[in-house]
């Protein structure tokens, strides 16, 4: 019997779901924190937020951030060391992104098991960059005195808040597209839980 090669290796699956928990808690509590002093003409409805009140929201936010940061560091270290980033995200050319975007918009971009198309590569790299931006701008909001150099880098306390909000918005948009695509191609979901199995060398896809 041939060795079973999963679509998503176990460490990746664990990190994916830990990250999902951290992100949901951070966004929900972050909305509650934003509501305490909104800088745009709207607030998030209470039912969408986590923490009940500002004190609870900050407590959840500053607890979940440790999960996000530790898990994120493991992910970056693992992705680089294992060659996952190099194999899955590279090469990435503007031409390929344009080609695959055009195909995707005409619903002619097939899902290839175990291979990311150029749009996926761009979005995954983009959301990793947004995650790093969210952590750095969040640190600048948290410690504008002790981490004054980081606060200055973003242009001060208020602009750090705005950057943090924009990073969150980008991540929310990513999640919306990500979840929509899973809804359109539901067979990708079990693979992120059980690992799934890569197609046999003869090209037949073996369903897990």
């Amino acid at each position, binding site marked *: 019997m041939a060795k079973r090669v999963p679509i998503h290796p176990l460490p990746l699956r664990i990190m994916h779901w830990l990250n999902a928990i951290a992100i949901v808690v951070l966004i929900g509590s972050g909305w509650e924190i934003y509501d305490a002093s909104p800088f745009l003409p709207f607030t998030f409805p209470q039912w969408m937020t986590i923490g*009940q*009140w500002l004190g*609870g929201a900050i*407590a959840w936010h500053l607890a979940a951030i440790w999960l996000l940061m530790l898990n994120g560091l493991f992910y970056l270290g693992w992705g680089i060391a294992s060659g996952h980033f190099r194999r899955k995200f590279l090469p990435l050319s503007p031409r390929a992104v344009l080609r695959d975007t055009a195909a995707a918009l005409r619903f002619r971009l097939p899902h290839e098991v175990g291979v990311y198309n150029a749009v996926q590569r761009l979005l995954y790299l983009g959301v990793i960059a947004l995650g790093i931006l969210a952590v750095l701008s969040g640190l600048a909001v948290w410690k504008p*005195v*002790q981490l004054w150099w980081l606060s200055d880098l973003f242009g001060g306390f208020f602009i750090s808040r705005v950057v943090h909000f924009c990073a969150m918005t980008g991540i929310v948009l990513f999640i919306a597209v990500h979840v929509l695509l899973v809804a359109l191609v539901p067979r990708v979901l079990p693979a992120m839980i059980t690992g799934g199995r890569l197609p046999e060398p003869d090209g037949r896809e073996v369903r897990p």
Partner: protein
Amino acid sequence: MKSFGLDRRKLLGRALALGALGSLSGCDFDHPNHPDLADRFLRAMSDWNDEVQAALFDPRTLAPTFKPSQITRPPRFNAFYDISQAPQVDAATWRLALTGRIGDKRPWRIGQLRAMPRESQITRLICVEGWRVVGQWSGVPLHHFLRKVNADLRARYVSIHCADGYFSSIDMASALHPQTILALDFLGAPLTAPFGAPLRLRIPTKLGFKNPKSIVALGVTNTYPGGYWENQGYNWFSGS
């Protein structure tokens, strides 16, 4: 014990997503003395964040200062009550009581404090809610005062009690920071009632709620004193 005021029904739904937090007992969220699993978890993480912030605190790092033109006018009032409810303290009969690990516990009159060397600062007050204001405060550096009354500078906490029942506490390292002052003046004139007359703590290395107003007692202690908001769930260290 800190409590985070979590609603059971709402949390239960979220606990499904959180998985590990699913075993919520029948404890009452409304009673801080009976924290449930989520409360205990958040409390432990908040304590951990206190330690991280204490390690991150550099006594030589100064809070940014601003130009007089950048001062927020009119100043913004904030308290857990309306501005009309601000305590009216008679400066003539007011005394600052001293408690705990302090050598000379004789109470202080306002005139004695005004005779001390002052430090003036134009600094930014950042509220835990996210807004910020720039103001000018001047007063007695707390480290001068603590040395003057022969306080135990190796003790862990400085606690503050106020005329309106508010109370808070800070770590000794932050208390000894050069920009931490017992403020007497605000915007070039003696403090007014809404802004903490006759004496308030001004500590620009911490969030706004760690700047108690209308102080009536100051203590030095090794026993965790908590605070009005801190006991309800705000992070205790709350450094900037």
